[in-house]
Every structure is written in structure tokens, then in C-alpha cells.
């Protein structure tokens, strides 16, 4: 199993060059059963990353391009009158797939965004009083442009924590960029990718990751972090209990990827920017900078 996971990460690194940490975080997010938000300027490979992950995890994949005129019904589906059978029939929207790539989510209106975010939270869709369950597993990888771009609707702060992690990709290094320029087009590589994990294997891995041990001392540290964010004047809102749970789950998955059976403070610190950054300050994309005072101030021992 572990070997499969290693292979998966290695394969992803073949496609997206020089972004080992981001790839590990993305895999970690999926192992922790969380939704992922990738934020960066266009063209740095957000879509490529999500596409690669979907491919490697072997899940049904659907890309939804969010635009300013997309309607909630375009995402979740709608009820249409069937003239043959003389009755209304539900046409499921693109969201009824295991893995959703919500591209440029902040281009859509708040209404359309809400439709997606609610589905993420509840893992089901309600259309005209009827409830339809979403497939299992269900992942959303959303990409968004930095909010200061013109013509965007920033995700509402209250809903942004539906995403377990937010990661930034950033420009590639010089060497990675050279390889990118010299190599084959990425979409060809992606299409050539074989699935590295079956959905059943993924479920197994998720369970194994969740059973990683977190000692009382570690929980103390986690609680100290939560308490710090709630007290510090640096942050408008502290981390919620849900954020705390997410932080722990992500740290466990991180430790699991590192092949350890116990969570260390370093695991928490590794996932903290991705898990806490967008919750503490949605307006800024500098996650590492946001959590830097936490890492410096909260005493581990």
C-alpha cells in the first residue's frame, strides 16, 4: 500500500516539476478526506495538478469551469419535464462525480459558489425538495485566482473553511521551468498516466491514516495553537473547532505519508499553513506568512 502511495507521488512529481511539497500536501488532503483549494495566478499549473491527481487516484473526473454566468442548476442539475413519460425527471449535474475540478471558482457569482460549497459540506444535493446523495468518495479540488483580480467574487469567509487546505503553487524554479519547456506537453503525459490507486485502496489508506496515534502531549500542542489564534490580536477570527479537527486529520495523514505511526509536532507545523492560512486570513494568499507568528510563539514543550 505504502509502495503504491510512493509510486503515486513519484508519478505526480514527473508531471508537475519542482512542487514536491505542494503535491505531498495535496495527497495528504485527500487522505484526510478533505477538499482542496488551489490558489494562484493563471497558468502555473493548477489545472494540471488537479487533473494529475484525479487520474492517479483513478476516480471519475469532471471539470466544471466556473464563469460569471454559471447557474446553480448548471452545477447540481435540474428537473426537466419529460414529454414522453409526462412527468418531471431529474438530470444530475456535473457534480455527480467522484472528483470535481472546480476551475476558477471565484469567477462565479456567490450563488453559484454557494451551490458547490453546500454540496461539499453536506455531500448531498437538494433540488426542489428532493435530496440526491453524491458519490463516495467525493472530492472537490477548486482553483481560484488571487482575489485582487478584476471580475472576481471572493469566496465568502464563512464558507471558505469547507476546504481543508489551500495551497499556492507559485512559479516554477529555473531548472523545473527548463524541463517543462524541453519536455512533452503536459496533457499528453497526463493522458498516458495509469491509475496508481483504486478507490477501494484509497479508502483503506484513509482509514490507516486516521488511525495514526496522536499523544496527549501532541493534543496539548494543538490546543495551544488553537488557543493562540483565538487570543492573538493578529487574527480577526481564531481557528474554529472544525479547523482543529481538520488540522489533526491533516497532520495524521502527513505523518502517514512519512511512514510514521505517531503524529509529531513537526507534522502539525507542516500542514498548518495549508490548513490554517485561508481560515485565518482569506484575503491574503501568503499562508506561510500568516501562520509564521503561531509557529514562532506557541511553545511545543
Amino acid at each position: 500500500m505504502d509502495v503504491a502511495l510512493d509510486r503515486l507521488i513519484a508519478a505526480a512529481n514527473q508531471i508537475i516539476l519542482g512542487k514536491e511539497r505542494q503535491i505531498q500536501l495535496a495527497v495528504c488532503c485527500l487522505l484526510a478526506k478533505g477538499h482542496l483549494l488551489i490558489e494562484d495566478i493563471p497558468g502555473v499549473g493548477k489545472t494540471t495538478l488537479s487533473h494529475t491527481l484525479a487520474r492517479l487516484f483513478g476516480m471519475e473526473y469532471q471539470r466544471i469551469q466556473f464563469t460569471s454566468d454559471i447557474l446553480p442548476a448548471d452545477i447540481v442539475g435540474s428537473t426537466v419535464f419529460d414529454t414522453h413519460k409526462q412527468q418531471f425527471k431529474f438530470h444530475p449535474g456535473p457534480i455527480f462525480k467522484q472528483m470535481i475540478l472546480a476551475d476558477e471558482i471565484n469567477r462565479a457569482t456567490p450563488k453559484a459558489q454557494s451551490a458547490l460549497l453546500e454540496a461539499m459540506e453536506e455531500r448531498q444535493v437538494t433540488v426542489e425538495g428532493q435530496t440526491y446523495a453524491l458519490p463516495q468518495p467525493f472530492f472537490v479540488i477548486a482553483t481560484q485566482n488571487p482575489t485582487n483580480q478584476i471580475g472576481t467574487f471572493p469566496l465568502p469567509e464563512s464558507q471558505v473553511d469547507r476546504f481543508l487546505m489551500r495551497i499556492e503553487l507559485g512559479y516554477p524554479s529555473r531548472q523545473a521551468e527548463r524541463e517543462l519547456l524541453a519536455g512533452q506537453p503536459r496533457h499528453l503525459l497526463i493522458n498516458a498516466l495509469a491509475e496508481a490507486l483504486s478507490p477501494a485502496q484509497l479508502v483503506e489508506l484513509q482509514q490507516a491514516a486516521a488511525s495514526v496515534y496522536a499523544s496527549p502531549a501532541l493534543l496539548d500542542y494543538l490546543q495551544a495553537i488553537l488557543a493562540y489564534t483565538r487570543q492573538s490580536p493578529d487574527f480577526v477570527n481564531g481557528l474554529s473547532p472544525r479547523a482543529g479537527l481538520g488540522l489533526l486529520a491533516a497532520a495524521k495523514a502527513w505523518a502517514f505519508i512519512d511512514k510514521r505511526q505517531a503524529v509529531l509536532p513537526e507534522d502539525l507545523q507542516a500542514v498548518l499553513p495549508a490548513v490554517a492560512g485561508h481560515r485565518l486570513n482569506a484575503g491574503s494568499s501568503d499562508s506561510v506568512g500568516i501562520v509564521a507568528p503561531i509557529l514562532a510563539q506557541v511553545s511545543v514543550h
Partner: protein
Amino acid sequence: MNALPSSRLLWFMSGSIGLIALPHAWHVPPLLIGFFGLMWLWRLLAIARPAWLPNRWGLFALTLAGIGLAFSQHRGVFGRDAGTGLFVVALGLKLLEIRGKRDVYVIVYLAFVVAATQFLYEESILMALYILLVCTVLLATLVTQNSVSPQTVPALKTAATLIVQALPIAMVLFVLFPRLEAPRWSWLDADNQAKSGLSDTLEPGSIAELSLSAELVFRVKFDGDLPPPAQRYWRGPVYSLFDGSAWKAAPALFRAANPDQPAFGGRAYDYTLMMEPQKQNWVFALELPSAFPAGLRRNELYQLTTNKNPGDRAEYRISSTPAYNTGGISPAERRENLQLPGKPSERIRNLIAQLRGTEASPEVLIANLLQHFHRENFRYTLNPEPMPERQVETFLFERRAGFCSHYATAFVYLLRAAEIPARVVGGYQGGRFNTVGGFLEVRQADAHAWAEVWLDGKGWVRFDPTAAIAPERIEQSVNVDLQIASGAANFSPIQLDAKTLTWLQRGRQLWQNVDYQWQRWVINYDTDNQKALLQSLGIDDFVKLGYWLLLSVGGLSGLLAWRLLRPNRRRRDPVLLTYRQFCDKLRKAGVDFGPGDGPQTLAQRAKTVRPDLADAIDRIAAVFIRLRYEPGAETGDLRTLKTLVRGLRV
């Protein structure tokens, strides 16, 4: 503020109220306790269905009914029983009317009063512990009332903590707080408490009844060694009037006075006698008391009486001397002790003539008489067949089976018939030695009757005819427990020595000792005791007492305050302490790190600064991580960590 109490609180409260009232079921009239029980059950049912509670008018009617009931049972509100009944009824009624916080307090306070009335009926150590337990639950009710999110166990814990912390101060107050002698309130003593024991009439069956009672009569603690068992006669009433079946003590008014004071010789025994509550004002001293405190009087019959209320426990310091001579006898006294109910029969006179032989000496007659009892197949039994008519003759010539009072009666009768002054003495004989407490316990089952004969030049001399039949009865005392267990009163010699003293009996002795100390130091602590104690402490006036009170209460509460309010010291985790030492060493070695660095980060950084220590640093980090973050660290790991850190040279 006036929110309705939670159901947890109601359960708590109803539970403790039920516990409080429970022991009252034995002495509050059934009607009243039934009324209370009804209210209590109603309350319990209404916890789940508050709509079942009575409305204002229903409550009013119930109140009237309850008060009426209380009055009908006691005709008044004064006195122990009436007051207790009223409080119990009030508690029951109040249970149905809980509208807010205030009512909860009223009920809890009422319950405390009801708890106190419990002590008016029973003062045993068990009852005290029971009430203490119930008080804990009552306090926990208040704690629950004042908690935001009440939890049962912490509330009980807090209540118990409060009581434990309060006890030392309570004890000091108990000992030092000025105790006033309460006047005797006649109207409070209206309630008679029936107690068994010897009376001034000795009927044939009266001692046999007592033989099954393990009730304690008194305890004796000797200063030195104990008198031999054959001398352990505790003198009670003296019976000189015989009507053919029962003996009566001569009325005090007509009692003939003895001209001489008794002369004592030989060694004296000093002891502390602690009487349990009695019906009569008799104090059972070892024969014969030679010195006794001022509150006691030795009457013409050498029996001690007290002028205090016999219903209270009392403690006396007494000296007794087993060797004594009472001197002469007045004519009136002689006459009194020769009295017979009619002329003795032919058979009796023949028996006397036969026993007396040719010589006329009373001593010889007595010796022969005792021999007669011993030889002629007389038996000792506590349940002889009834002898309704001509008791003495039936006993002497037909049944030849009886217990101490039969033998004493026959013995005295025969001597009186032989013109020798004699009388029956009641009291207790023997007693069981409690090895744990080092005192003698005398119970009702130790009740005994023996004879006293006046001999010229010797005065009144004790003879115990029972000893001639069953010497074991005198030497080894009665095994009360065995008698009670078997339900039979047939006397059989019992082998009882230290070897056969099982742990059960030892336990019982221990318990008796605890109970003795309890009675002695707690129940019996009164103005006199307090005065004596205070004087031994050097406190002779109220000012000094005030200082003492202030000082001891202040000292205790200061101690408590220090314990309670000192700043919480952080629990020291040895793993963390050792790790800090490690950090200090690294810092000294020039490794730069902050509070937010985890063990792996720290180890990495330290290794880059000091590659020479890489091995040791890795091992320390690994052991530390295992101890602090991984499941199932072993006990040896901590020692390893300590050794490694100590061994790290920077």
C-alpha cells in the same frame, strides 16, 4: 434566578431527603411517616411529570391535613416526638412546593434540622456516620444548585471535600466551645424510654428474661489489674422482703439503719465505671465500694445511687475493696431479714435439722447446705419448668433445676427458717474482658442474684449458691453471643480462651472499643468533662478560652487556606524536565532554536551545528519522541533518556 430546578437536582434532593427521614420510620408514628412517604413518592413521580404536582389549593388542603395529623398524634408541638413529627411533616409538604432556588434552600435547611432530631433518638457511632453521609448528599444538592452544568460525581466530591475540611474545625469547636449545663425541662422528658434491667422486684422469671439480652449495662476500666473472676460481683438492689414467689427491696423509708460503718481491709481496686442509660438511679459498683465521687451515695444496703438523671450516660471514678466487715446488725434489721411468708413446712424444717446436724453454728449449716446443692443432683438451667405454687418447696424437693434466683431464694429461705439473717442481692456477675480496649463489658445477660448472710463478727457475708451448682457460671461468665445464637438458655460450660477467640470476636471487641471511646469522649462529653479538660490545658477563664478558640480555629483555617489557595504548581513531567536539560545543553553548545521548534527540527539543527554529537542527539530525540508522542513507551525509556542526556558532553 427563579428558574425551575433541574431534574438532576430534584433527584439529588429527593434522594437525600428520603435518606434523612428513613431512620425516623422506627419512632415517628406510622401515620406521620406514612404521610411523609406519600409526599415523597409524589415528588419522585412528579419529577418526570411536573403536571401531577398539586396546585395552590391542593397544597393548602394537604398542609391542613398534615398539621392536623401531627397534632392528632402528639397533641402539641413541644417535646421531642411532637417536634420531630412536625418537622418531618413539614419537610414532606415542602417537597411538593418547589418553585425556585429559595425553596430548595428551605428544604435542605429543614432536612438538616430533621437530621439533628435523629440524634435525639439514637446516638450510636453508626447513626452519626450515616447522618454525615446524608449531610454530604444534602451539601451536594446545594453544590448542584449552584453549578452551571451540574455533574453528579464532582458535586458529591466537592461536598465531601467541604465536610472533610470542616471536620477539624468542628472538632475544635466541639471541645472548646463553652458548654452550658442545660436545665432539666420537664416537658421535654415526657416521652418514656423503656429500658430493660433489674428492678426493685425480683420475680422468678425476671433474670431469665435478661439472660438473652446482649444490651450493655456498663463498662469498667480498671487502673491496674482486674480482680479475679470470683470477686466480680457488681452490687445492685438488695431484696429482703419475700412473699413466697417474688422478692422486694425494703422501701427506703422503712429501711433499718445499720449502726456501724463498714470496715475495709486488704487491697482496693480503682476503676472508671461508665453506666449506659438506666431506668433506676443505681450504680453497679464492685463489692464493696469504699470511695466514690460526691454525686454518688452509698445507702444502708451498701448500694451506690446517683442523683443524676439515670437516662444519661455517666462516668464515675470508684474504689472498691473486696475484703470488708460491715459490723453489727440492728434489731430492726435482724427482724427484717428473718421475715418469712408464713411458717415453713415440715419438710423444710426436717431438711434444716438434717443439714444443721448436732452443731448450731451458722457456718456449718451454710457449708452443709451448699454441699447439699452440690451433691443432690441439682441442675442449673435458665428455663426451668414454671413453679407456680410453693415455689421453694417444689424447687428443693421436686424439680431441683433452676437458675441463680432460684438458688438464692431457696438458700435465703432455708437460712431464715434456721433463724439466721439473710437476704438476696441483685446485680451483675462477671463481665467480658475486651482485650482491645482493655475494659470489662457487663451486659444484661450477666444479671445475677446471690445471697448475703449476717454472721456474728463478720457482718454481711456474700454466699453464692449458684457457684455450688455451676462454678463455670462464676468463673467464666456467660457467653452471651452463644446463648443468643442458640436461643436456648441452658447453661453449659463453654471453653473460651485466647486461642479460640476468632477474628470475628476480635473484630467485635475492636468495635466495642470504638463504641466505648465514642460513648466516653463524644456522647458523654459534658460541662464537667469540659471543665476538667480545659483545666488540664491551663484554661481557667473565658478570656483564655476565647484566645484558645481563636487561635486554634484561626490556625486550622490558616492551614486550610494555605492548602487551598496556594498557587497551583505545574505538574512536573520528568520526561519534559529531562528534555529541558537537553535543550539547555544544546543552547550552551551554540544551537539556536525557539520555543516553536519540535524535537526533530531541533535535532536537525543541532546536528548541523555539532556534527560530532549527531549520534547522541539522534538517540535522545528518538527516545524522547517515543516517550512523548508514541503509544506504548516503556518504563525503561525514561531511564535511558536520563542517562543519555546526562552523558551528553558539550
